[in-house]
């Protein structure tokens, strides 16, 4: 919007994963929408979406039921931030699209949308290190493609809207099974108006060597993005999925409310990496959960930077013996932002293991909240949980809260919980300054050091970018 194209290209050239730098995401090109469900939410909205997508009747029913659930459920303000009350559901546009069918080549993507993704560096990343890419623009994917070598292995990677049509048998079997419509108010909202998101199916014994990536771009003002992602990894298979998100900075608020369901069948491994960098006007209310069968492993790497309010606790239901779940989460709350993040681990079989490592950084008046739920019931044997949450406060008025809820019943389990709150001390900053680093550079380095052990677990392309982003966020934090 304000940045010149030159700036965008320069950033693009040095950044393998663009869209993480907030100034890079803060631009908007005018786009003409052929499909617009209008403002506000009613049954008519759902009929409009269903007709635009030419959906099967069961999906329309699913949506209509979900709307009832959404309307019946109160906002969870008895525990969550009252800022939720500032979302005006009647002022939001629930479906905006140019069309429903994503293009398979960038050349076919309409120019006005294509230049957005080019500026964010998506086609370039695809060439460099990805096995497949889906690029969603507001409600629908503009582009979706998988490398031939990967699709030949039988891997399906499609936009959810498409997959519902082409693979209803797999989709319907798992859809809404990990996260039921009624899980919470926002999962119900998503179930009513969902559009876009990714569908992945990896057949047995296939290890996808490169990551699949989705990029979620909000372009329109007063808009809500409600993608729905479903990933099923069959026995003994492995996949890494990465998602990035940006939106331009509007004066009004934007809503992003996704539902992500993962299913790891026996011995499968899923790694799901999120680097979100929403503009500070975005309400980001996301439900993410995975179901791990016997000896399967689900790992969420969740990095939350930006947004006005994020509420998100990636979870794993450990349903099979020896299943493993892991959540690694980094949250950075700057002035005016509230990152309410954490993890849920539900042990439902013997010898299951879960690990939660959460690090949050509060800058200025930013607020970071950790909420963790670990549940190990009485009838199980040999379960383990290790929870570690560390908070770093940058300024004296920064705030952090920790709400761990760990229920371990029965014998023969091991649960460990460690929490720490630290502050960047004046002494440490002076020490770094006395070596020639500016105060802001010193702050950045302290913060990068704090999250360093977690960032190392990110793929290289993301960790470099994450460091750059932290530097940018810290620049405004002093003096």
């Amino acid at each position, binding site marked *: 919007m304000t940045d010149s194209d030159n700036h965008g290209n320069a950033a693009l050239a040095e950044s393998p994963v663009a869209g993480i730098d907030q100034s890079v995401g803060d631009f908007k090109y005018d786009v003409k929408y052929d499909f617009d469900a209008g403002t506000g939410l009613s049954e008519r909205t759902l009929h409009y979406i269903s007709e635009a997508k030419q959906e099967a009747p069961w999906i329309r029913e699913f949506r209509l039921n979900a709307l009832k659930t959404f309307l019946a459920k109160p906002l969870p303000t008895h525990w969550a931030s009252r800022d939720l009350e500032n979302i005006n559901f009647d002022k939001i546009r629930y479906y905006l699209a140019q069309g429903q069918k994503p293009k398979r080549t960038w050349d076919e993507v309409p120019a006005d949308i294509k230049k957005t993704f080019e500026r964010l560096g998506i086609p370039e990343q695809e060439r460099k290190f990805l096995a497949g890419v889906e690029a969603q623009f507001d409600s629908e994917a503009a582009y979706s493609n998988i490398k031939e070598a990967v699709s030949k292995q039988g891997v399906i990677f499609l936009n959810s809207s498409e997959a519902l049509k082409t693979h209803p048998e797999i989709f319907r079997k798992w859809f809404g099974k990990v996260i039921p419509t009624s899980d919470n108010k926002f999962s119900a909202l998503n179930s009513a108006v969902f559009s876009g998101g990714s569908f992945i199916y990896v057949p047995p014994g296939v290890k996808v060597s490169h990551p699949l990536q989705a990029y979620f771009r909000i372009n329109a003002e007063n808009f809500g993005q409600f993608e729905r992602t479903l990933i099923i990894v069959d026995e003994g298979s492995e996949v890494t999925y990465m998602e990035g998100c940006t939106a331009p900075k509007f004066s009004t608020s934007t809503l992003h409310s996704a539902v992500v369901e993962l299913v790891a069948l026996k011995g499968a491994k899923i790694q799901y990496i999120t680097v979100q960098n929403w503009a500070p006007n975005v309400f980001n209310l996301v439900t993410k959960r995975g179901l791990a069968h016997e000896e399967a492993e689900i790992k969420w790497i969740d990095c939350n930077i930006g947004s006005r309010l994020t509420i998100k606790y990636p979870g794993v239901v450990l349903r099979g013996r020896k299943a493993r779940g892991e959540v690694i989460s980094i949250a950075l709350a700057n002035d005016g932002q509230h990152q309410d993040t954490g993890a849920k681990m539900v042990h439902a079989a013997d010898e299951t293991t879960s690990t939660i490592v959460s690090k949050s950084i509060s800058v200025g008046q930013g607020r970071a909240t950790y909420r963790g739920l670990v549940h190990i019931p009485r009838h199980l044997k040999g379960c383990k949980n290790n929870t570690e949450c560390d908070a770093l406060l940058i300024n004296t008025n920064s705030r952090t809260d920790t709400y761990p809820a760990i229920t371990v019943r029965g014998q023969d389990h091991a649960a460990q919980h460690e929490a720490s709150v630290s502050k960047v*001390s*004046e*002494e*440490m900053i*002076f*020490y*770094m*300054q*006395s*070596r*020639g*680093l*500016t*105060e802001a*550079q*010193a702050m950045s*380095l*302290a913060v*990068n*050091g*704090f*999250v*360093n*052990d977690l960032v190392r677990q990110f793929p290289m392309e993301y960790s470099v970018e994450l460091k750059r982003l932290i530097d940018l966020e810290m620049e405004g934090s002093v003096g």
Partner: protein
Amino acid sequence: MSQLVIQDLHVAIGDKPVVKGVSLTINQGEVHAIMGPNGTGKSTLAKAIAGHPDYTVTAGEVRLDDRPLLEMEPDERARAGLFLAFQYPSEIPGVTIANFLRAALQARLGESAELDATGYYKKLYEKMDLLKIDRKFTSRAVNEGFSGGEKKRCEILQMALLEPRFALMDETDSGLDIDALRIVADGVNKLRSSALGILLITHYQRLLNYIVPDYVHVMYDGRLVRSGGKDLALELEARGYGWLKKELAHA
């Protein structure tokens, strides 16, 4: 040739005056030692010159050549060629020595230029070889879990790489056993050159057996009360600080 000029410097901690008028000129290539009993303002002098926020300069000035240091931020002073070796260096969890020093050198280049990584490591390893420091050392987080001796060697390594024109060494010998002291002193001696002026702050004479100063100053109650050659240190060693107190009380 550069000069570090301290002129009638007064420093307070809160409302309490600690340094009460210190004047001293250090030329590049010279080693000055400041000795004195505990609590006489030696460390305060060093930290105030480096710009520690807890210390208030109430009068006087410090110039590095023609640049007024006291008007500069601590990091600007460092980039101008000043270095403070800390008595108690801070830990920086998660940041390796190699990355820390790289950031410090990058800060000297500004935003437009990118530090040459190959050249950087070449130089880092040269300095480590010079100081006989194991290569593995720089992959450890800065001062985290270091012994007293390791912390001081880390300071000397930083000094070697950042190549200041003037180094203030604050109680570099404190907390070191004799072996560690010798290693650290060897390091400092290797860095001695016509391009480096050193202000060595110490409580004990023993450091000066290893790092032989050109000038020795005695600090007492916030002032430099005696100045002389390296023999002055030996005199202090022989007679203790007690006679000074008496003499000054009579004066």
